[in-house]
């Protein structure tokens, strides 16, 4: 491609400037700063902020796949929550044989265990996602009502399958030894696991951004979100892309499920369903189909929940709905609306 030749010969004068939409990005630091005087103590504010960021990253991991699936495939997948639960339960496949690593006093063994749990969860949910797409979702492409009903049905069946395989009682899973406790810097307390969650969330977000913005596959996905019919008219088999994205979205939910499970240290079949309201809120706030919007929305929702929970606990339950309402009044299509045909 002769991009360089084109760029060098193109006049840079009189070009319309691309408007970078900074406002939604500024919301997060603005919110944090506004919360500071209400929280009062600086160290408490840092603790709440780090905890909120960690929570936001976990929500992002669980929601990012759903927003891509909706954006590209126009599929409303109410069954997404089951991949979160299945991912969490898949960690048992690793925790069973390698249970000794949990108590090992080695950060590398502990992180290795977490990584293996993540890989097992992503692999397992990717396979289940492929089957779910083929058996449950594919017959109802194009009909939102049927999608809601059928994917809800799929979720119920899968939850019952979890009960049948792993039992109906909650299962406790311990955090690996070196990930317990907190880093204490002065008066600031940051839980170790939350710091790890922030790192993994950022890693995944940056990876997705690189994939979407720097690769041909990402280009196809972005184009497909805007106008799938035109992508087909260019000769691409978008059905395969659909399946790949659905599988990847399921795997991401599985990853989120593992992180969420270690955070709660308990497994229940309904744990995925329990967070789906939050997941839908963040993908609506972010703009359906927008990964960047999902990221900002997740952090926003988590920070608000933390700050409000500390300052005015009675309002914590409705804080997410309030955030969504305010964002939609400001931007009815979400923070980063995806261009559509």
């Amino acid at each position, binding site marked *: *491609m*002769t*991009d360089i*030749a*084109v*760029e060098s*010969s*193109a*006049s840079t004068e*009189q*070009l*319309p400037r*691309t408007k970078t939409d900074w406002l939604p990005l500024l919301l997060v630091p603005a919110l944090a700063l506004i919360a500071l005087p209400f929280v009062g103590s600086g160290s408490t504010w840092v603790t709440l902020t780090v905890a909120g960021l960690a929570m936001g990253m976990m929500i992002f991991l669980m929601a990012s796949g759903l927003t891509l699936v909706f954006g590209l495939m126009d599929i409303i997948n109410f069954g997404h929550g089951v991949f979160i639960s299945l991912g969490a339960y898949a960690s048992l496949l690793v925790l069973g044989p390698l249970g000794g690593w949990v108590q090992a006093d080695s950060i590398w063994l502990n992180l290795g265990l977490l990584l293996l749990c993540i890989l097992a969860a992503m692999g397992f949910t990717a396979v289940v996602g492929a089957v779910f797409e083929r058996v449950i979702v594919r017959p109802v492409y194009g009909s939102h009502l049927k999608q809601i009903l059928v994917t809800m049905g799929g979720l119920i069946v899968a939850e019952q399958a979890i009960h049948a395989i792993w039992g109906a009682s909650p299962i406790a899973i311990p955090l690996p030894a070196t990930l317990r406790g907190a880093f204490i810097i002065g008066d600031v307390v940051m839980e170790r696991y939350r710091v790890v969650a922030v790192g993994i969330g950022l890693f995944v977000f940056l990876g997705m951004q690189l994939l979407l913005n720097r690769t*041909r596959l990402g*280009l*196809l996905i*972005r*184009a497909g979100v*805007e*106008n799938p*019919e*035109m*992508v*087909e*008219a*260019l*000769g*691409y*088999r*978008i059905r395969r892309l659909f399946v790949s994205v659905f599988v990847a979205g399921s795997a991401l939910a599985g990853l989120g499920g593992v992180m969420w499970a270690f955070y709660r240290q308990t497994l229940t079949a309904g744990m995925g369903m329990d967070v789906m309201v939050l997941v839908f809120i963040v993908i609506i706030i972010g703009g359906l189909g927008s990964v960047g919007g999902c990221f900002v929305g997740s952090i926003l929702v988590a920070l608000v929940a933390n700050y409000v929970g500390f300052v005015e606990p009675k309002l914590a339950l409705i804080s997410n709905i309030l955030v969504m309402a305010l964002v939609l009044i400001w931007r009815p299509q979400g923070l980063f609306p*995806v*261009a559509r*045909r």
Partner: protein
Amino acid sequence: MAEALLQLSGVHTHIGPYHILHGVDFAAPAGQLTMLLGRNGAGKTTALRTIMGLWQASSGTIRFGGEDITRNTTPDIARAGIGYVPESMGIFAGLTVRENIVLAARSGPVDSTRLDWMLGLFPALKRFWNLPAGNLSGGQKQMLAIARAIAEPRRLLLIDEPTKGLAPVMVRSMIEAFKALKAAGETILLVEQNFHAASALGDNVLVMDDGRIVHSGPMSELVADKNMQQRLLGLSLDAHQ
């Protein structure tokens, strides 16, 4: 007449309960520009979408380069060498001009000769190369849509109303670009409402009405015969020149 690259025989298309195409028969000869004219709702866009497989023909056959493509999927039809520019242009507004072109070159990077030729046809695109396509004006978007269709060699271009809503100066640029495409030997099936543009470009003309082809022949014949224009298109075309 040159050998037909595209041949439709008795093509019927239904969209839901509506019967839109009622046995369409026509041929688009290789290396020529065939205009498809007709009033709004005559079935021109449906004909192009049916050829592309975006709507399935209920009956009849569509042959391209001698092969039956009636039941082929849209990606297969595109891979067979048909480029399509829809009436809505179908550009990806959130992608840059460069990314739109990169995506259109499915088989790999656009070679520099082709890129130079393309940007020679539509020089404005060079200036907006790294800007989101959504920032372009209507005419520039149309240029991008056509550039995308020719980003790699195609055997046939289907273009739906490229001058619709464009300023006269942009229409003139578009006519020049199509003349250059013709000179390059491209086979084009062009839906157009602007008879001035159509008469300046077409080698052949097809007129559709109510989902049927009601006239086909050389464009020169229709241009020369005002009565035929009046009868087929229902208005004095002088008013549109």
